[in-house]
């Protein structure tokens, strides 16, 4: 009998004790931007920082980089993986009381939306001058830690079984031989696939661009609701062609699986991967310093490049040594990033009708 | 003999529940198996009904060996202690359920069902649900359901144990009348001495799995086989009805 009572009182007490143990960090008022330390040198001495920096990242591979930051500043880093759409939803729901400090990675369109909603903190530091202005926000609300490029992943076995010729360009993809064999993610959930739509619309012009996607739509098997769908479906022999981000992890796939990468000859769409500090966060200072810390020191960027197995940081900071691009940057499509955020809603809405029409037909 | 049990044995794991049991019963008679709880009377009934298979021995009914027949193929029906009525069916559906398996046409089954319900005084309740009627009424539904298929033998497992004393006396009388009218052969299991004395044509007294005495009630009353039987019956006095039927048994009390 005693145990039951014990359990009951435990449950009653649970509320109080748990609130207490978690509430401490969130009750500290965030310092306002004006009191932040003005950085003076490119590698200024670390300001007095303390506490914990909470990070939402796109993956769990960044441990060593964060450990280095902890060693330099004494700030503990805790991180969790979330997709950029999830982060944005969470931010909006939190209504200006973010539970994390730093946003590390994710398609830049979400960062642009967040900036427009006033959810990001401005970060400025001297070394920002060395960064290519194409890949950073002019007002310093977001920076890029690299870019994601988009290409095709082909399943060689399926291509052969189905008697398909390898596509080499975006134009090839509308060929009717690929009907039902191309997988692409819904541009609403995938920053990279949104980049495809935006970049092609920019390069082809609105009318021709939409004609292209209408034609492509006929060949698309379905639009994945997760960003990794195309890559996964092609790797697991489910579909022949995937429109996917390309990085070293995809390159590694080609060694283990019977898949190959195609860099489209008529241009590679790309999307910057954002880094930003949440406005009103508990540890704004640490997060702001982290941004400066990362971009001011080439060692840190090289560590990042190594962890990510990506070389985009060379584009972000052209002066960076020890990281070489594995592709010719001239094949990157011309993209006007200023259109990226502003057009998102319209483009997605149009795209939705395009997909929607087809989805309904397929249902019957 | 119409019903003949010979050398029945049953054990549950290491416990012998029925030991070398043999007796017989003539057509149209009512036999009461009497004994205190745990004496093997319900086990015996279950073996006759086919719910338990004897470890040894034989059961003959109307000259046919039914020992190995499953319950659904025996011309035997049971009125269970808990009645076993179908809660999702009406009274009439319950009563006519067994007719389905005799190829009886629906209309005819309905007519027969109403006739049997009338017999047990429940004609007005044909459309009622089981949970809407009282315990005594449920008892009668169970009885009608068991009799309607015109079995060769009807078994009753302490059917009145859930009823109050007054109702029990009434039901006892109704059952006896019904049994005479239908000329039904019945085996009735009970631990109630008075019930057994009043109802039965023959009585079988069991103790620890064995048959102690088998005879007509008055024979047992006058000539109990041993001191146990005498003490177990514990009859002090008998009260008779004017028509010569036994009305009441007055017992010493506490003789169980």
């Amino acid at each position, binding site marked *: 009998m005693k145990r039951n009572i014990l359990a009951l009182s435990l449950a009653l007490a649970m509320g109080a004790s748990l609130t207490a143990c978690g509430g401490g960090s969130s009750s500290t008022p965030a310092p306002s931007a004006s009191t932040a330390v003005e950085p003076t040198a490119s590698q200024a001495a670390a300001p007095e920082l303390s506490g914990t920096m909470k990070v939402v990242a796109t993956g769990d591979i960044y441990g060593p980089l964060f450990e280095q930051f902890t060693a330099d500043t004494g700030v503990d880093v805790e991180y969790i*993986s979330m997709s950029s759409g999830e982060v944005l939803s969470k931010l909006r729901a939190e209504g200006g009381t973010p539970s994390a400090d730093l946003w590390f990675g994710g398609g830049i369109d979400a960062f642009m939306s967040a900036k427009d909603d006033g959810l990001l903190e401005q970060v400025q530091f001297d070394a920002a001058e060395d960064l290519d202005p194409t890949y950073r926000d002019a007002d310093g609300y977001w920076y890029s830690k690299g870019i994601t490029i988009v290409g095709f992943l082909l399943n060689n076995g399926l291509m052969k079984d189905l008697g398909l010729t390898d596509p080499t360009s975006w134009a090839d993809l509308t060929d009717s031989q690929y009907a039902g064999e191309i997988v692409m993610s819904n541009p609403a959930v995938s920053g990279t696939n949104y980049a495809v739509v935006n970049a092609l619309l920019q390069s082809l012009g609105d009318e021709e661009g939409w004609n292209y996607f209408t034609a492509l739509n006929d060949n698309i098997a379905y639009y994945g609701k997760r960003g990794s769908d195309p890559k996964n479906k092609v790797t697991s022999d489910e579909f022949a062609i995937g429109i996917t981000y390309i990085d070293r992890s995809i390159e590694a796939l080609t060694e283990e699986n019977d898949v190959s990468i195609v860099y489209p000859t008529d241009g590679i769409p790309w999307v910057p991967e954002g880094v930003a500090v949440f406005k009103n966060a508990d540890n704004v200072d640490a997060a702001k310093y982290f941004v400066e810390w990362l971009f001011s020191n080439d060692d840190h960027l090289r560590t990042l490049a190594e962890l990510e197995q990506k070389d985009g940081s060379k584009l972000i900071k052209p002066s960076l040594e020890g990281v070489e691009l594995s592709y010719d940057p001239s094949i990157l499509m011309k993209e006007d990033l200023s259109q990226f955020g502003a057009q998102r809603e319209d483009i997605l809405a149009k795209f939705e009708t395009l997909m929607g029409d087809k989805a309904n037909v397929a249902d019957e | 003999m119409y019903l003949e049990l010979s050398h029945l044995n049953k054990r549950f794991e290491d416990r012998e529940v029925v030991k070398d049991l043999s007796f017989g019963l003539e057509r149209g008679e009512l036999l009461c198996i009497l004994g205190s709880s745990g004496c093997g009377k319900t086990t015996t009934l279950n073996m006759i009904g086919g719910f338990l298979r004897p470890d040894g021995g034989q059961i003959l009914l109307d000259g046919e060996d039914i020992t190995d027949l499953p319950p659904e193929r025996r011309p035997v029906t049971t009125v269970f202690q808990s009645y076993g009525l179908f809660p999702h069916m009406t009274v009439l559906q319950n009563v006519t359920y067994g007719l389905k398996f005799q190829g009886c046409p629906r209309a005819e089954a309905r007519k027969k069902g109403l006739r049997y319900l009338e017999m047990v005084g429940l004609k007005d309740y044909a459309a009622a649900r089981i949970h809407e009627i009282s315990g005594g009424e449920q008892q009668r539904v169970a009885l009608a359901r068991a009799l309607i298929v015109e079995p060769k033998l009807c078994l009753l497992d302490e059917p009145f144990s859930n009823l109050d004393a007054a109702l029990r006396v009434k039901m006892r009388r109704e059952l006896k009348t019904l049994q005479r009218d239908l000329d039904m052969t019945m085996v009735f299991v009970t631990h109630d001495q008075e019930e057994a004395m009043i109802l039965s044509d023959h009585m079988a007294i069991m103790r620890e799995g064995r048959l102690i005495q088998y005879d007509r009630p008055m024979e047992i009353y006058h000539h109990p086989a041993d001191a146990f039987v005498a003490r177990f019956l514990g009859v002090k006095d008998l009260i008779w009805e004017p028509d010569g039927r036994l009305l009441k048994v007055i017992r010493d009390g506490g003789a169980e």
Partner: protein
Amino acid sequence: MNKPAFQSRGKRVSSKEALFRIGEGVDKLVLLFLLGSVCLFVLWPMTCILLRSLHLSGGDGFTLSSYVQVWTKYQSALRNSLFIGIVSALLCTLFSVSAAVFLSTRRGWMKGLCMAVLLVCMVSPPFVSSLAYIQLYGRRGWITYRLLGLSWDPYNSWGVIWMQALSFVPMNALFLIGILSKLDGGSLRAARDLGARPGAILRDVVLPLMRPGILVCLLLSFVRSLADFGTPVIIGGRSTTLAAEIYLQVVGYSDLEKSSAMNMFLLVPSIAFFFLYRALMRRSDRLTEGARGKQESLSLPLFRCGPLGWLAVAMSLLFFVMMTLQYGCIFLSGFLKSTKGVYSFTLKYWHQLWTISGSTMVRSVIYSLIVSLGGTLFAMLFAYYMERRRVPGRSLFDCLVTLPYMLPGTCFGIGYILAFNHAPLKLTGTALIVMANMMFKQLPTSTKICSASLTQVPVYLEKAARDLGGGQMAVVRDVILPGLRPAFLSCFVYNFSSSMTTAGSIIFLIDPGRQLAVFKLFDAVYTGDYALASLIASAITVIVLAVEGLVFLISWKGAARRVS
């Protein structure tokens, strides 16, 4: 209040009176705590979602525009949701009834084995089940393509239906097995006695008596299918459902107003079905009341039951074979490496598994334990107050507590952020909010289990306890809680399995510093490391089974000690 009230009988009347008063006070407090918690952790977040859908929070003024948008745009998604819901509920119920009847008529090792499979299947880590499904039955599936040479496309509504139906079976089957074990054995024996062959008994007695339970299964599966977004997102292909569209609104468009409005749409059919559920549950109680609830196996030779019996056997075998394959596939994938389509054994992922920090696993177990124990106790008490005490507004509270079952997990999580991001209710970032979310997400099922079990605790026991001088608290402590022992175990198993694998609703609530095992699984899935994901899923399954086994053992020992 640890002392039974009667011990103080010899003392002064006033002390006895005081003790009694304290008991009454605690009783009121407990009730207040229960109802208060439901208001705080269910009603309030739901209100926040409603307000958001009407644009009443977050800046702009009141407008129904989101509803108009949803109504005009998502009718086909809603139709598809209903279609998938109905068919998968039907299929799932067919599987569940078959499995329940099959299991109830089996004894010995076969029953033990099947029960073990059911228990394993209760643990359903997100994503990997669907991935295993694709691996087995996909376009290049091991079974469909490699074994049978079929070339078919699993990415459609039927894939979703099939997957959902299978994944809802374990819970339903356990529920139905409970109902079957309460069936009045007398009815079955009577039917046999009257000449009914096994087939007729199954058709005329067993199935009709199960009918309310079967309908409950249908409804619960239907509502669950409506709220399920994971399956259609992964294997729906072009086929979409309202729940999947809600998920898309959240992760793709971050449009909280619209997704909230879509939730409200989803609630309409669900709430309608809830009231139907209540009505049916009442009837079910009536059909099984008075039965002697003995735990004995149903004596029905299923193989002699004609076509119906064969159908039941075939469906259950199909289910158990498919489940064994699915979980076998998950486990095996962790040790297989595919090099250009050729599989070979590898321990690479096994070693990787051990790099996951132990504290993450331990935290998962601790959270889940707290949620399971707290949630089970909460559900027991809640069921008691709802079923046995005349609490004002009880049907309202009963409906409230069921709401989280009807929402896609993602939205229940968002609702919690909306509700708890400001003082004085600032809970975001705490462990409490995560556990509360898990607990209240699972409470609908927990309370249903407890309510069903409560019908087995006779009211006269309560009366007896009070008659002997025990107050309301003594009734709860000495009659209700011990009487709900069987419910405790099933409730605990359900809660623990779910807590260890919940992800959708708490992804928004989890603090970066307090990672849970299931998010390691997420990371692995995200990076496309299926082998590692499979292995993490297997590890979670093993941990769940181990902890559950331990709790079984403890409670069994506790029971044994009590008896001696």
